[in-house]
């Protein structure tokens, strides 16, 4: 996993609430392997028409947003299924952070596993950021994970909260599994104690 430290990049607004994982990547693409890549399938049915031609009015198809690395979204972004493909599609497309008032819980967890930073800010500030991006399309947002700050196109700085453990892993680009395997003995000890008590499992 690539570490995440700082990001200063162009951002795209996606205002609708409840953008679910079926919209981020439709179920018919899920059989593919991780190594196949999912970036070209991101928002597939919102992004492409029936013949496969890009829909001109979809935000990521507009030239100014083509290099967006940040999405500024509506409430409950990533609700729905547990498919990690939703995160893979965003990441493979080039998105490194999503800013929203709230996220689907599983999507939120999945993001950290792949170096994608979800930033939750108050709904009013997120709406204001989207308005700024619509007024001056192509403008940038700067995120500093170490300092836990997000600087908008208006230069206003917001502090965001993040779980310290998730932050540490993102900064290091570290992976949970190797970290947890370091606790092998603790796990075995716990397991044995449990099995002595709950024999029927």
């Amino acid at each position, binding site marked *: 996993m690539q570490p995440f430290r700082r990001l200063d990049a162009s951002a795209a607004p996606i205002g609708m609430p*409840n953008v679910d994982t079926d919209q981020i990547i439709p179920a018919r693409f899920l059989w593919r392997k991780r190594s196949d890549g999912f970036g070209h399938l991101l928002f597939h049915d919102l992004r492409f028409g029936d013949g496969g031609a890009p829909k001109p009015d979809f935000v990521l198809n507009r030239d100014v947003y083509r290099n967006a690395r940040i999405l500024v979204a509506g409430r409950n972004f990533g609700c729905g299924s547990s498919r990690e493909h939703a995160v893979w599609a965003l990441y493979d497309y080039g998105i490194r952070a999503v800013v929203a008032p709230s996220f689907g819980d599983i999507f939120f967890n999945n993001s950290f596993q792949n170096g994608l930073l979800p930033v939750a800010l108050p709904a009013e500030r997120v709406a204001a950021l989207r308005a700024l991006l619509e007024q001056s399309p192509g403008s940038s947002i700067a995120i500093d994970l170490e300092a836990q700050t997000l600087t908008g196109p208006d230069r206003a700085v917001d502090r965001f909260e993040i779980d310290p453990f998730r932050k540490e892993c993102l900064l290091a680009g570290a992976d949970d599994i190797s970290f947890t395997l370091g606790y092998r003995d603790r796990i075995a000890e716990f397991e044995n104690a449990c099995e002595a008590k709950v024999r*029927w499992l």
Partner: protein
Amino acid sequence: MSGPSTLFDKIWSSHAILVRPDGATLLYVDRHFVHDGSGNAFRMLKERGLAVRRPDRTFATPDHYVSTLSHDLASINEPHRRGVVEELEANAKAAGLTLFGLSDRRQGIVHVIGPEQGLSQPGMIIVCGDSHTATHGALGALAFGIGASEVGHVLATQTLWQRKPRNMRIVIDGTLAQGVHAKDVILAIIAQIGAAGGVGHVIEYAGSAIRAMGIEARLTICNMSIEAGARAGMVAPDDTTFAYLHGRPYAPKGADWDAALAHWASLASDADARFDREVHLDAAEIAPMVTWGTSPETAAPITARVPDPASAGDAARRDSIERALAYMDLRPGTPLTEIAIDRVFIGSCTNSRIEDLRAAAKVLDGRRAVVPAMAVPGSGLVKAQAEAEGLDAIFKRAGFEWRESGCSMCVGMNGDLVAPGERCASTSNRNFVGRQGKGARTHLMSPAMAAAAAVTGKLADVRQFPMRP
């Protein structure tokens, strides 16, 4: 744990292997279910040269990609779909997991077979790479969905890093009216608290209406906790739970059963336990519900009308109603009972158990569907039970297709799709844009309501259907 605690607190603290100062907790996982969407997680493991730590606690079944026309593997004629089912069976065999494979009568939707086999028990932590894992909470377990990386983590370590969610209690007191089922209750809850209403919380469902419900109804309620935004849903184990589990293949036996009972009985939330949030509903006020939009929170009583965006409080809300109505091709003010449908799907991990099929069959008995319709039992054993009761004959006489078990048209990954522009009355759990197929329009409802829709060709109020005694 000191002080009064909730069911959720008790299960959480008894599974915490270690807690870091920052609150990150390493949780032990009792049961892990894997399905045919787990290929990437197994590959991740292989790439690192890691083995499955506890094959004896890991159970596999193919459900998303299986054909519902036949459970002969060769009948999956699309190579990539057949490939993922074969891959699951091969992974399960190689790792020594218990597999309820395609040729096994016990195969079915993972969230149907866990409870059915007695694998899902009170006090457990249960995970699966599928958001509707919340279903198993109906047995008094803490059960939640995880992503592919987390599936790999559980396979390798039998643990997960989590931060403790908050406690929420939804209390439903009173008696449900005739024709109102568990599905109506959970849709009414989501309509009230919103699709993000439970974000960051684990919901405990309580109150006299929940206590009066059987396990299958509780499974339906817990199943859609995720549509309310919650991490998990649960119901405290009680005599109903114990009676349901008794004698199931993987339930404890003999002296173990007595020890298990004593443990399970201690799990309920303490009387003075604190919840971060409480919501109350009056069961008697819940009507049969349907959704009109593209989020489960757009549920309304069947007696209502399609809302008017113009009367929405704010611009964002107006915009989202307009979008939903455009996709659903509905006009503001239309009575919901005037919406004509093109097909009916009865199935999914929300509503494919025997009681669901019975409720639908009761409405269908002696009547005929006027649109294409299909019934897909949740497991091979549910199907066998339904056939033993003669329900299959009622479905078939009513013009329904009677299929083999699987996820089917809930998500269409096996090819059971709703055609673009078609309107489907569905007992599944998600009405998202494109969920049942590109351009498909979904209305969520209970099995009884779906049966009523099948025979009228419109969304219909099941309370107006006299039923045979």
